[in-house]
């Protein structure tokens, strides 16, 4: 038996020294190379350990010196060293890095024009492996020479070389400009013709086509143009191919087309077929099955019609069956959870189906109450909850997304009301723990789920506050990462929604005036918007809560005023105006303070901001502004008449008169009310 594993503990170092020894003849080197290649192919652990031992530079140096020679023995050395390099790069970013660092790239590239076909094969395969990694150097399509080279690869007779060309596109084509450039250069046409080629060419072409289409309706319409109905049906035909990978890639290509140009693939029968094919592909135990779940998720994401179809095809049940099969690879669980999250994101029917699947009795130990609770809950919910503590960050984040979608359900809310604290104990606590997660994406996803869960019920809120959730949210609202800040403030905003006074006070004390002020002035408009919405919820309700914005010399109110005067984003302005409107519903001092923010007496002659907002194209901003005016001019208030006079002088009254036929009904109603109040003080001209 050659190369028994018995003595392998000592061999890696020997093998490397045989590779790098100058004395070794080509024959010895060839043997050592082949041995190395056979050890590492398919074996991640060995790849890593050989990389650590520094094998890659030795292999690359053989590759480079053999590339300089031109005889039969150099061809075998090239084939073996290129294969070893390719295997190091296959499926392992550390390997790709080692290979690139050792300078293998240009040598491999030179093999493409080698006279020996086997050498060309080996070189093209290795480059393909490298291009499957994110670490591969970006190919610049906009450079004319590069585009010519790419076309020459795609037109090559060797299918490994064509495959390489397609891989380069899949790896490097990112922007709409690049997509357009590629299709203008005739790449689209060539890729379409490859759809009729060999298995490997078909798959490579489908993948590249999807890359060139992604988010680019212009290129998609070129593909679907006058003579290309045939191309679309060729792709559609491949969704029925006998190779699962081809079926998957064809589905993904169609999904990309549909996502880029929603007007295509409207046919219900075809949409249903896509769903069914993907469901069937889920049964594949390998990578194809893993990716099928992700494809399903991108097919139904944000599309209610497709979610409805998926619901009718029992996708919820089928995904759950898969989830229960366990043990599953992390990738598989992640994909299924994401698909479930998308499925349940809009339709209550999907959520309630999911929650009613196999209701079982789950015994849980409620740690904070120190007693055992037995609650009826859905098996699925249990699986999703388990996934919240999975080893893989991707799975944890996906479980949070799923939790977020499911917790929109009326059924969850009703169950929660009747069945007590299951949700609180089993879901809220792990979610709060995820706020401390080391992965940013998990933190953001957990924040999203928490935002949803805390919005409705005081019971959730109190458990959430008890287990330190607010402290953590406030901490995260100071994060350097804007996505985390945004979601933390969002969650705080929802937590504040319809809270009782004690709850509000608790949150406010934790948050402090200065933090809230700096969040209102955050560099990110989306954070400003959420911070203002948070204040809007804070001052909503009883008059006393309005006082919060007047603390510390009205720091918060001034910040709000500055945003209302100067923010560029309509969303920010809308929330700002609503806060002012809420404050203006308070007492005389409150109202005067709002007037001061809206009409600062700095002697400037520029048009008042109120007029600008009333003229905005955004109907929500017009509504919020009109609301503020209604609150400022409520006739029974003592200061109302002086405010009306001031508003009249500023030109607000005549602006309102222009708006009595506003196309937005909300605006129209508020304007009518406001004008009515103005008129009780005379029409102002006297």
């Amino acid at each position, binding site marked *: *038996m*050659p*190369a*028994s*594993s*018995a003595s*392998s503990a000592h061999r890696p170092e020997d093998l490397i020294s045989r590779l790098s020894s100058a004395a070794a003849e080509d024959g010895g080197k060839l043997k050592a190379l*082949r041995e190395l*290649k*056979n050890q590492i*192919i*398919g*074996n*991640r*652990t060995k790849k890593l350990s050989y990389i650590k031992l520094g094998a890659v530079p030795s292999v690359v140096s053989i590759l480079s010196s053999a590339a300089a020679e031109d005889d039969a023995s150099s061809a075998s050395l090239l084939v073996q060293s290129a*294969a070893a390099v*390719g*295997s190091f790069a*296959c*499926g392992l970013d550390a390997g790709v890095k080692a290979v690139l660092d050792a300078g293998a790239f240009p040598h491999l590239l030179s093999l493409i024009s080698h006279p020996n076909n086997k050498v060309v094969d080996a070189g093209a*395969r290795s480059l393909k*492996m490298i291009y499957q990694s994110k670490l591969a150097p970006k190919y610049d399509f906009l450079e004319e020479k590069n585009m010519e080279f790419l076309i020459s690869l795609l037109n090559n007779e060797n299918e490994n070389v064509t495959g390489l060309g397609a891989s380069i596109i899949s790896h490097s084509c990112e922007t709409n400009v690049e997509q357009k450039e590629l299709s203008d250069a005739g790449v689209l046409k060539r890729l379409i013709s490859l*759809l*009729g*080629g*060999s*298995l*490997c060419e*078909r798959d490579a072409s489908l993948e590249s086509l999807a890359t060139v289409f992604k988010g680019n309706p212009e290129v998609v319409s070129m593909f679907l143009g006058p003579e290309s109905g045939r191309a679309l049906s*060729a792709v559609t*035909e*491949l969704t*029925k*191919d*006998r*190779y*699962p990978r081809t079926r998957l890639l064809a589905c993904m290509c169609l999904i990309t087309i549909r996502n880029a140009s929603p007007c295509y693939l409207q046919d219900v029968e075809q949409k249903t077929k896509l769903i069914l094919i993907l469901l069937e592909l889920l049964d594949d*135990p*390998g990578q194809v099955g893993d990716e099928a779940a992700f494809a399903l998720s991108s097919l139904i994401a944000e599309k209610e019609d497709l979610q409805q179809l998926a619901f009718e095809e029992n996708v919820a049940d089928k995904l759950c069956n898969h989830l229960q099969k366990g*043990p*599953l*690879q992390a990738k598989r669980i992640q994909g299924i959870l994401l698909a479930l999250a998308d499925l349940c994101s809009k339709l209550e029917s999907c959520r309630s189906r999911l929650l009613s699947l196999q209701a079982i009795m789950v015994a849980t130990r409620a740690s904070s109450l120190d007693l055992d609770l037995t609650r009826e809950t859905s098996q699925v919910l249990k699986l999703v909850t388990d996934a919240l503590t999975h080893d893989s960050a991707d799975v944890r984040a996906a479980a949070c997304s799923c939790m977020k979608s499911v917790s929109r359900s009326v059924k969850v809310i009703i169950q929660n009301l009747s069945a007590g604290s299951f949700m609180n104990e089993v879901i809220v606590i792990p979610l709060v723990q995820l706020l401390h997660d080391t992965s940013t994406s998990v933190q953001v996803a957990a924040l999203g789920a928490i935002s949803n869960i805390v919005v409705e019920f005081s019971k959730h809120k109190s458990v959430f506050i008890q287990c330190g959730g607010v402290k953590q949210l406030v901490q995260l609202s100071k994060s350097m990462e804007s996505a985390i800040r945004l979601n933390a403030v969002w969650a705080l905003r929802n937590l504040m929604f319809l809270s009782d006074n004690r709850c509000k006070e608790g949150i406010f004390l934790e948050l402090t005036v200065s933090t809230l002020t700096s969040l209102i002035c955050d560099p990110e408009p989306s954070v400003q918007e959420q911070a203002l919405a948070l204040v809007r919820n804070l001052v909503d309700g009883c008059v006393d809560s309005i006082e919060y914005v007047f603390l510390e010399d009205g720091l918060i109110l001034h910040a709000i005023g500055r945003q209302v005067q100067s923010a560029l984003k309509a969303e920010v302005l809308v929330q700002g105006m609503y806060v002012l409107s809420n404050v203006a519903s308070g007492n005389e001092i409150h109202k005067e303070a709002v007037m001061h923010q809206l009409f600062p007496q700095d002697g400037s002659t520029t048009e008042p901001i109120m007029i600008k907002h009333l003229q905005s194209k955004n109907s929500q901003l017009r509504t919020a502004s009109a609301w503020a005016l209604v609150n400022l001019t409520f006739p029974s208030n003592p200061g109302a008449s002086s405010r009306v006079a001031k508003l009249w002088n500023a030109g607000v009254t005549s602006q309102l008169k222009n708006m009595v036929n506003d196309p937005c009904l909300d605006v129209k109603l508020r304007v009518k009310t406001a004008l009515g109040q103005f008129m009780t003080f005379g029409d102002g001209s006297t």
Partner: protein
Amino acid sequence: MATSKKLITREEWEKKLNDVKIRKEDMNRLVMNFLVTEGYVDAAEKFRMESGTEPDIDLATITDRMAVKKAVQSGNVEDAIEKVNDLNPEILDTNPQLFFHLQQQRLIELIRKGKVEEALEFAQEELAPRGEENQSFLEELERTVALLAFEDVSNCPVGELLDIAQRLKTASEVNAAILTSQSHEKGEKEHLACDNRLQPADPKLPSLLKMLIWAQNQLDEKAAYPRINDLSTATLEDPTV
């Protein structure tokens, strides 16, 4: 109930059969598919010259593929792995399941030869890391290592792993993977296969025969007709009423 069955006479049946037109080229492709998949290089070459039917793949590659298959069938798994890697290093690098099954087969062969220590070391070094990467591999590995726990392996719950059938299973999996990697068949529709998810390594002919048997069984319930009982001669037997 036999009385309710419809009787179809030989004349009627043959008339119907004659109405079905099957293209000669299709028949030839079926034969070629069988020869190529099963690895009959010489016969395929002769058939190509005589019938003008072009095979889907380069006939020269059949020899290599058959060598790999034979190596697994005769228990030389390591040799088979090296041969596959020479053919195309991507096959085992991108197909973890196949790679695991080959390594598992290697372990089985070591156990068969009674090399206990070597088997344990191999399982630990080569297979255990794969088990860590994939839960279902871990379960299969545990099943395989369990062979070591039994004195009389031929009579133990996991004894089937030592069967020749296990080798054949692994061999056919490798065969399929190589065929897929070499497939040059054009993306045209499969008219012949009833189930388009057949493994590429399955020749189409046997499945057509299976379909024939299934169809006859279905028909038996409804009619008496000239049946084919002997598949090797395909003679029509007169219907018995």
